[in-house]
């Protein structure tokens, strides 16, 4: 028996010693080419489409695999990859295969050939106001409040924003202030000589409207608040910031002075002082503490005259969006964009965010460990040919961006390894807003005929149903 054990043991050992390196080399892309009798290092392309089951073509050859598919043992070089599914638009990309590397397209969203829209609410509308991070939208037939419908995306139902007996029915809306994920918003409007600020709280079914005009000393540049502390609002003026408790109607004039920037998130007030230091505190100011001591901004990139909005996804990682459109980071590259940034949106708990100017959209992935090893941000411009980009929304787990560019809805892929790739979805009424909901997978907009429409971009089976925590 011992002899048999030894024979089997050494046979297995020999097999292992041959197979194991072979498997590891194969997993690293090495193959033996019987024609050239040489070992070559190959790469692969991984494709996963939504919906799955699409045909895969490499150049003109159709693969037997359907998506999700891994095309392996590809010699280095450029390939044209195409995905086709009957009834859907063809998707094609030029892909560079590198030795030992995988080029992955994990979420190729195939759009139906016939992207038909559905009317959300009947009638003709003038504008839609979006309330990102909630399941609510405001659809307005005119500027007067009586024409405003509060539309619930989740229930697909609309209710008038003001009741029949409300004294605010004829209030004319000029603009709206809102913070992501907040179920409150502030409407600015009214007659020419009696402008008002109305705070609207949508806690239950019936919205509650409060006139907070008297709490504001003058017209602020911005009104901001922390969605986690909706009762505390901050009216930002050129020289100071007033804090207002809307629940008690208490006003703390010039509560914050001599600051060059502010941000209100995570139950904290973040401030950039006039001498470029950063402090943070809870709303009750119980403990004011400095932060960014070790990772402070390079003073050379900070402008003296610009007011910054502070975004602090982590305490040691802060972004500043200047009123001149500059985007700065306290990690390399410090000056991300010099000017023209219109907005930023975070995703994935602050690890990924995008910024857009009127013509470009850039994505910053802080999860890239190679870049992060040097403390930096991985930056990729995913769209360069915008005409007038006004709004952007993350879609499908940050694999896509839905944007409103010059009154066109575009779907842009955020593929780190492919070419720029965008799809036209629909034309929208001039100067109006759009909204993309990750909860329903639909884009909401007013069409050129002023009808309130929606188009299903992401199939319902691919949606994560997180209505209340929706981050758009």
């Amino acid at each position, binding site marked *: 028996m011992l002899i048999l054990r030894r024979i089997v043991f050494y046979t297995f050992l020999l097999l292992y010693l041959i197979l194991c390196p072979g498997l590891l080399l194969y*997993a690293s892309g090495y193959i033996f080419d019987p024609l050239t009798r040489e070992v070559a290092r190959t790469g*692969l392309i*991984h494709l996963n489409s939504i919906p799955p089951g699409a045909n895969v073509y490499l150049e003109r050859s159709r693969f037997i695999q359907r998506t999700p598919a891994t095309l392996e043992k590809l010699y280095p070089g450029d390939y044209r990859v195409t995905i086709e599914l009957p009834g859907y638009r063809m998707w094609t990309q030029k892909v560079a295969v590198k030795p030992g590397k995988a*080029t992955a397209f994990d979420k190729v969203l195939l759009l139906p050939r016939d992207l038909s829209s559905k009317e959300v609410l009947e009638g003709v509308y003038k504008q839609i106001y979006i309330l990102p991070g909630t399941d609510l939208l405001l659809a307005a037939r005119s500027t007067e409040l009586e024409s405003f419908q509060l539309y619930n995306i989740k229930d697909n139902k609309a209710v008038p924003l003001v009741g029949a007996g409300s004294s605010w029915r004829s209030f004319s809306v000029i603009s709206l202030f809102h913070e992501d994920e907040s179920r409150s918003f502030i409407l600015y409007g009214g007659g020419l000589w009696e402008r008002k600020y109305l705070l609207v709280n949508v806690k239950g079914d019936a919205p509650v409207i409060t006139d907070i005009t008297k709490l504001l000393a003058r017209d602020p540049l911005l009104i901001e608040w922390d969605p986690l502390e909706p009762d505390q609002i901050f009216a930002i003026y050129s020289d100071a910031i007033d804090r207002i408790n809307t629940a008690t109607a208490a006003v703390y004039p010039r509560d914050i002075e001599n600051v060059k920037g502010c941000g209100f998130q995570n139950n904290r007030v973040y401030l950039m002082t006039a001498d470029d230091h950063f402090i943070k505190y809870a709303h009750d100011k119980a403990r004011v503490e400095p932060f960014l001591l070790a990772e402070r901004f390079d003073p050379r990139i900070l402008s003296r005259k610009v007011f910054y909005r502070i975004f602090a996804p982590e305490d040691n990682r802060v972004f500043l969006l200047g009123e001149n459109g500059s985007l700065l980071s306290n990690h390399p590259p410090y000056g991300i964009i010099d000017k023209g940034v219109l907005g930023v949106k975070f995703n994935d708990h602050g690890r990924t965010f995008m910024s857009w100017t009127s013509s470009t959209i850039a994505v910053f992935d802080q999860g890239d*460990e*190679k870049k992060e090893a040097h403390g930096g941000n991985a930056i990729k411009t995913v769209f360069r040919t915008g005409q007038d980009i006004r709004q952007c929304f993350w879609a499908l787990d940050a694999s896509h961006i839905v944007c409103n560019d010059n009154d066109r809805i575009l779907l842009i892929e955020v593929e780190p390894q492919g070419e720029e790739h965008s799809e036209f979805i629909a034309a929208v009424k001039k100067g109006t807003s759009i909204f993309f909901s990750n909860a329903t997978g639909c884009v909401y907009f007013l069409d050129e005929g002023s009808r309130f429409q929606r188009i299903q971009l992401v199939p319902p089976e691919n949606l994560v149903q997180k209505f209340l925590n929706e981050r758009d």
Partner: protein
Amino acid sequence: MQFVYSRHQLDPKERRIERFFETLPGALSWSIIVGMTVLSVTNHLLASAIMVAFVLFWVFRLLYMNIFLVISYMRLHIEKGTDWMGLIGKIGLPPESLAGVDPFRRRQIESLWRADQHPPKPEDLYHLVILPVVREGRNILEPGVKSLVDGAYPSQQVLVVIALEARAAAPVKQDVYAIQKHYAASFLDFLVVEHPGDIPGEAMVKGANATWAAKHAAKYLQDKGIAEERVIVSCFDADTVAHKEYLGCLTYYFMITPSRLRVSYQPIPVYYNNLWDVPSFARILDIGASFFQLVEATNTEKLVTFSSHSMSFKALVEVGYWPVDMISDDSAIFWKSFIHYDGDYKVVPIYTTVSMDIASGRSFGNTFVNIYKQKRRWAWGVENLPVVLRAFLRSKKISVYKKLMFASRLFDLFVSWATWSYLLTVITWLPMLFAGREFSSTTMYYMAPRIKDVIFGLSLIGLVICIAISFALLSTSTIRQRRSHMVLHVFDWLAIPFVVLLLSSVPALDAQTRLMLGKDIQFRVTEKHRNKA
């Protein structure tokens, strides 16, 4: 070799050496687990490559073990029908008188004849069966005693000694004395030896109780004029039910083994007494333990005693009986003998079964806890490793080959016990889970899971073999089983990765960690329940 086995009687220098060895298994296991976890998070590519190599190694080892599981089972199956008593009668006869004996046995008997070896006559041999009892009632103890009476071997050649802990509860003692009264006439004698609990230097362990009983038995045998070398001692658990051919088979192997006095005899333990009375996770683990012993039985060079087994009484006396302060008396007695005889000691597998109870409890949760504690006690066998290494360090007579072979075997056994399940069920997925963009853009990221899937697919062959052998073993057992049991049993096997992780790897790591930190575990008699006596 004169060697102090107990760690409680060492001089400070020896104790420091042993303390160092005590830290090794735990340190190695933790290094593997923590190291691979950290590597999976920090260097996904390297971790992934290591895991591919490891999973391939694991499946090769699984298939290798499966080959010997099948061979071992076949041998068990073939030997099941052997007329051991008939064969015993033929040992010592000239080759021409062996007509009708199967060729394998014939060769064994003839080689003994040719070597001019004269084994003791069967009628001169006696069996001493020690049954330690502390809380087992009549329903647990009696079937084992009855199996000795009902066995093919003449029970008048058997001395049964119940090693009864003095601290045992009154009902337990009543049961023991009732059994003694009932069965005394069936054996050469039936002794009940009460073990006082306050002997200095002893721990509350089975070995201390069995040693006390064996010392009494030695005196009894001496009084009867029975020489120690004519006695084979079997130390069973209280719930052990020996196969009816067990003593016959044991006697045969004792007789035909030339170095019979320096050998332990290891049967195949099966856990059938309460097989269908326990939850599936309990069942599957102990069937796995039986399989392990079946595989080990084919590895006679490295075989170590486990659970119920037998040996020469002379050897037991010479080595100073079982350690009285160690929990793992079953394997410790082998190492004690191996060291005492300078490596001239081995274990011979005997292809017959002893059936025991699976640890259980009064509820599902209680069973889980009891099994965890039992497996931790089994894994506490790691306490022998530092002792053995210390002995290897001191011994000049044990060959370097044997030292290396057994040291590597011990490390392999205990470290793989504690780590493999964790590596296979958890670590193997971690590199993918923590993959950053750099790793996810390599071919390894996509190919490694596919390769592992194929390898895991191959391991299903091993699973199917295990299920088939499990059914085959069950079908030859005497336990009653319904068709529903058999269907259920297939599903038992599907849960094995999680059961092994929670109730085998974790207890093993627990035991090694305690040893590493210098903490003991208390010997705890395992609770066992049967629905029917």
